[in-house]
């Protein structure tokens, strides 16, 4: 009987258990942040493992790090920062109801995300070719006899590692693949969701006042960017002079 009374006019996207659109937006935003904070703890475990093992097997981690290519790493950092920028512009387009701008921003983010994965693939392939993937085919050659690895040796002039320390380079590469792999998995999931959003945005979703989905996805995408900022510094940069 009181149904009509209880059902005042409201935007179709306002769920009934919220009082107002602002309350709904604040709540979903907070929930997204809680999810991201669990992600901080998840990646935090990997970072802590890296911190401890790097100090433990220091020479092995330095030698392992010298195998990474700073140019690819820098390029990927720039690609990812640009993708964060295009994502932020996407949020702005959604907020200001620009459908074409939103589709363009999301598409650019999508393409930059794929570029990142492409560069990562080049790097992974090089690791496979050099037998630097931990496991049965792992090769200690570059670490026991660095001079045999001419490309790297001409840049760093590493001294040979003793066999037991050389073996610990496998720990470095295990963490390298675990951390960049988990990061890449987050990128793949993000790119998938971007594809879905582009499809929906073309039909006019997100540009009629309800921007929560784009906004919260933006938070996710920027979070993945932040993880990479730290991965780049820790895996590629800090051991170059040791």
């Amino acid at each position, binding site marked *: 009987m009181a149904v009509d009374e209880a059902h005042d006019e409201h935007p179709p996207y306002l769920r009934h258990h919220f009082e*107002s659109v*602002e*309350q709904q*937006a*604040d709540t979903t*935003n*907070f929930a997204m*942040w*809680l999810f991201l*904070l669990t992600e*901080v*703890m998840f990646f*935090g475990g990997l*970072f*802590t493992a890296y*911190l*401890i093992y790097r100090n*433990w097997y220091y020479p092995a981690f330095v030698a392992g790090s010298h195998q990474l290519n*700073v140019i690819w790493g*820098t390029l990927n*950092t*720039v690609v990812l*920062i*640009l993708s*964060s*920028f295009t*994502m*932020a*512009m996407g*949020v*702005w387009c959604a*907020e*200001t109801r620009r459908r074409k701008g939103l589709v363009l921003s999301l598409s650019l983010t999508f393409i930059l995300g794929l570029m990142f994965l492409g560069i990562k693939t080049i790097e992974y392939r090089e690791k496979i070719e050099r037998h630097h993937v931990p496991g049965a085919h792992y090769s200690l050659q570059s670490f026991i006899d660095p001079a045999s690895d001419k490309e790297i040796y001409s840049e760093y002039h590493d001294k040979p590692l003793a066999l037991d320390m050389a073996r610990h380079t496998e720990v470095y590469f295990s963490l390298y693949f675990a951390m960049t792999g988990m990061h890449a998995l987050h990128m793949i999931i993000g790119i998938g969701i971007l594809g879905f959003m582009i499809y929906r945005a073309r039909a006019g979703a997100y540009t009629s006042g309800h921007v929560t989905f784009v*906004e919260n996805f*933006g*938070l996710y995408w*920027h*979070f993945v*960017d*932040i993880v990479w*900022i*730290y991965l*780049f*510094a*820790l895996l*590629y*940069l*800090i051991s*170059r*002079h*040791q």
Partner: protein
Amino acid sequence: MSEHNENAHHIVSPKVYVVILLALLVGTAATVGASFIELGVWNPVIALAIACAKATLVVLYFMHVRYSTKLTMLSIGAAVFMFLGLIGMTLADYISRAWGLW
């Protein structure tokens, strides 16, 4: 309700995004540049300091935390504090045992 107006949806302008983008690119150039200079123990310190500065810019502006609710800010602060606490306690445990002996 005045609380709501204070937290009303804030649209960050593209100008801010462009400035942050440029700052992040400069930060990337700086951190790569610093890695080419021999600074001993300071190499990791500087790299991490720049990474933290970049992350802070992303969180505050790209992720709009500067304009979000106090609840969100406090939660993020609590998480960072807890994360550092967990790392600190883990390190204290490892360092105070037979470091590097196994």
